[in-house]
């Protein structure tokens, strides 16, 4: 047991480092921010696209993909090593491409014909075209398959009407992977079909959603009589849910998951060192120390869980199911830790922004935390997932299982 690279890993790391040294400057400092409020302006986007192209040319854009498709047919571990090294350099965030390359394009690769793949994969991996995922709907929520956006057969094409929500990056996306209902008279999972479409198709409207934390990383998308061709179908008619599961499976393969926006025990420690409480420095207060220790063991536990997962990848084993726990732990910890920090700050804890200690970091984390507890699966859904997929417990009773979708109770 150690934390060392294998000889192969060390060689790859050196290779990556050399390339990064030649192509980027070392990172000077990292800034903490609200994880849910990430937005890119157009200048940043141009830089991000240029960097993505450079990575794709070298085969570092999607390391596990084949040569010539932005990859080097590498291992998941090599992909992780690249990621570790890249964070040490001052390069644009690749976040804008994550959903397209992580979820949409793998689905296109799995279900579309040669011609479509040839057209879309390369531009996506090179950053020229950005994709978003159009699954969630206001009416669906945790029950994703209960979506209501209709795709109706219309001559040799389809007409889309409805709306999608919580779409990350739709405002700068070129294409979207769209799950729609093509038959409401069969049970909900059976009446779905997957499509892709250009986000500039007439009738598509993107509106940012303003979040409770003021930012707006998500969008709502409206479809009004949007016409698309049958060739834009991904997979068979009525097989949309199976296709979507492929997409979502790719989502789950991403190691790690939850992010606390750089707000964790070290920051709390820093705050506690600078504040005086009733009985002296906050860092000497037993209740403060107890909390710090509680959160530390959770953070450290996650960190070492990630290392265990990476070890499995390094040994070419399937990673264990441990990765599922990250977001549950991180989101609640962020909310509780920030609330506690505000308490330490006392009446000044209610200040927001720069007036507050440490640039209002804890205020901003506290404001964003409710979103983190919801986005990408609520605490409750994630516990269901752990219970069912990891522990193998039975699912809940399903009253909508064999009922035609248009007869499922909706309360309306």
């Amino acid at each position: 047991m150690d934390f060392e690279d294998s000889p192969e890993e060390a060689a790859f790391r050196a290779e990556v480092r050399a390339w990064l040294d030649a192509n980027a400057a070392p990172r000077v400092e990292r800034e903490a921010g609200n994880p849910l409020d990430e937005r890119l302006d157009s200048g940043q986007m141009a830089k991000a696209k240029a960097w993505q192209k450079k990575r794709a040319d070298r085969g570092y854009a999607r390391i596990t993909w084949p040569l010539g498709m932005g990859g080097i047919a590498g291992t998941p571990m090599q992909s992780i090593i690249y990621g570790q090294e890249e964070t040490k350099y001052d390069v644009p965030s690749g976040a804008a491409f994550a959903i397209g390359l992580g979820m949409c394009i793998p689905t296109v690769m799995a279900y579309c014909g040669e011609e479509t793949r040839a057209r879309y994969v390369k531009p996506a991996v090179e950053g020229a075209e950005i994709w978003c995922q159009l699954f969630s709907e206001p009416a669906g929520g945790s029950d994703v398959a209960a979506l209501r956006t209709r795709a109706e057969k219309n001559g040799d094409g389809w007409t889309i009407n409805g709306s999608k929500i919580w779409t990350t990056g739709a405002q700068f996306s070129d294409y979207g992977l769209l799950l729609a209902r093509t038959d409401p008279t069969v049970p909900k999972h059976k009446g779905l079909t997957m499509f892709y479409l250009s986000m500039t198709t007439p009738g598509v409207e993107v509106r940012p959603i303003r979040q409770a934390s003021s930012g707006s990383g998500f969008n709502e998308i409206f479809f009004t009589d949007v016409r698309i061709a049958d060739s834009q179908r991904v997979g068979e008619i009525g097989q949309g849910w199976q296709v979507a599961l492929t997409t979502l499976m790719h989502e789950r393969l991403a190691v790690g998951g939850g992010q606390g926006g750089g707000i964790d025990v070290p920051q709390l420690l820093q705050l506690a060192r600078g504040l005086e409480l009733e009985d002296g420095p906050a860092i000497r207060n037993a209740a403060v120390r107890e909390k710090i220790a509680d959160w530390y063991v959770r953070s450290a536990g996650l960190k070492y869980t990630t290392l265990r997962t990476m070890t499995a990848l390094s040994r070419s084993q399937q990673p264990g199911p441990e990765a599922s726990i990250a977001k549950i732990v991180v989101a609640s910890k962020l909310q509780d830790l920030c609330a506690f920090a505000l308490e330490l700050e006392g009446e000044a804890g209610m200040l927001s922004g720069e007036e507050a200690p440490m640039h209002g970091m804890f205020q901003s984390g506290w404001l964003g935390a409710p979103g983190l507890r919801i986005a990408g699966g609520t605490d409750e859904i994630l516990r269901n997932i752990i219970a069912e997929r990891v522990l193998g417990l039975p699912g809940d009773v399903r009253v909508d299982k064999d009922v035609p979708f248009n007869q499922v109770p909706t309360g309306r």
Partner: protein
Amino acid sequence: MNFDFSDEQKQIKDQARKFLNEKCTTRIVRKLYDGGGNFDPVLWAQIAQLGWMGTAIPEEFGGLGLGYLELCVIAEELGRALAPVPFSSTVYLFAEALLIAGTDDQKRRLLPGIARGEIVGTFARSEGPGAVTPKTIRTGFRNGRLSGTKIAVADGMDAHCAVVLARGSEEAGARGLHLALVDLNGAGIRREAVATLDPSRGAARLVFDDADAEALGALGQGWQLASRVLDGAAVLMAFEQVGGADACLAMAKDYAMTRYAFGRPIASFQAIKHKLADMYVNTELARSNAYYGAWALSTDARELPLAAAAARVSATQAFDYAAKENTQTHGGIGFTWEADCHFYYKRSRQLGLALGPQRAWKDKLVGELERSNAA
């Protein structure tokens, strides 16, 4: 056994709720969130009309002369409605400081205006991050002149007057502290709006530079008087918090009953049911502790410090939990700006910090337990 509000008090409460239901929808809170000022002056004028500010002010000073129990039921409804008005600063803190420590002249000068809604007041204690202890009070008050900085002062941009906890002598600790009464429109005072978590409750930095001020209460008694004022305010604010928690529970329940997933209302899932049950339990415990605080406040009982601390801690915990789990129950929609959930989430924290954090009140609570146990 008579541990509940009287029928008359409950009637006042019902009327307050009916009034606020109509006049204080979350639409007016939203207006302030979207940049419509520090508080809602129309609502303030309307509740002045109803005499709410004077509920516990004796008739001889222009109030209704009702009492604290009547004020408690009004506070609960203000909390439920998230009323964006400087009520707590003016009534729970400023007016109470005058009633507790003021001379007859000071009372006559200011209380009638408060009762009429013409005077907004506040209470300035904290000077920056961390605990407020006698040691941290650096604002100086000597020979009728006040100098120093207070932050964050609730309603500080709109208040006409303030009571300020300040150091009057170099005597160690609490014994060197006074309360100073200051007209905020006088010379030597600068105010700056500061952003807080809850945009519907304004706050300020008050900078005093040799400002004119007068003593409120005996010199050297500032810390004790402030403590007594805070105890009363903690009870009253606990009612606001209980009202807020109750509103969150109602919202969460309504949403869970009408929102369907997997073909059934989400209220039929145990994860949601148990969450709501916990909200209910916390809120009922907080309500009961607040009632005990109300009794202690209304009778000026020896038990007030303990009762106030328990009411404060319990209500803060209940509102915190209800506000965050209300958002969680709503899911994604609850985290949008358009939903009302975040108003409660932000208000819960603002109220939870305004009179000092739980930690300080818990420490005080145990101190009181030690004392009563030793007695």
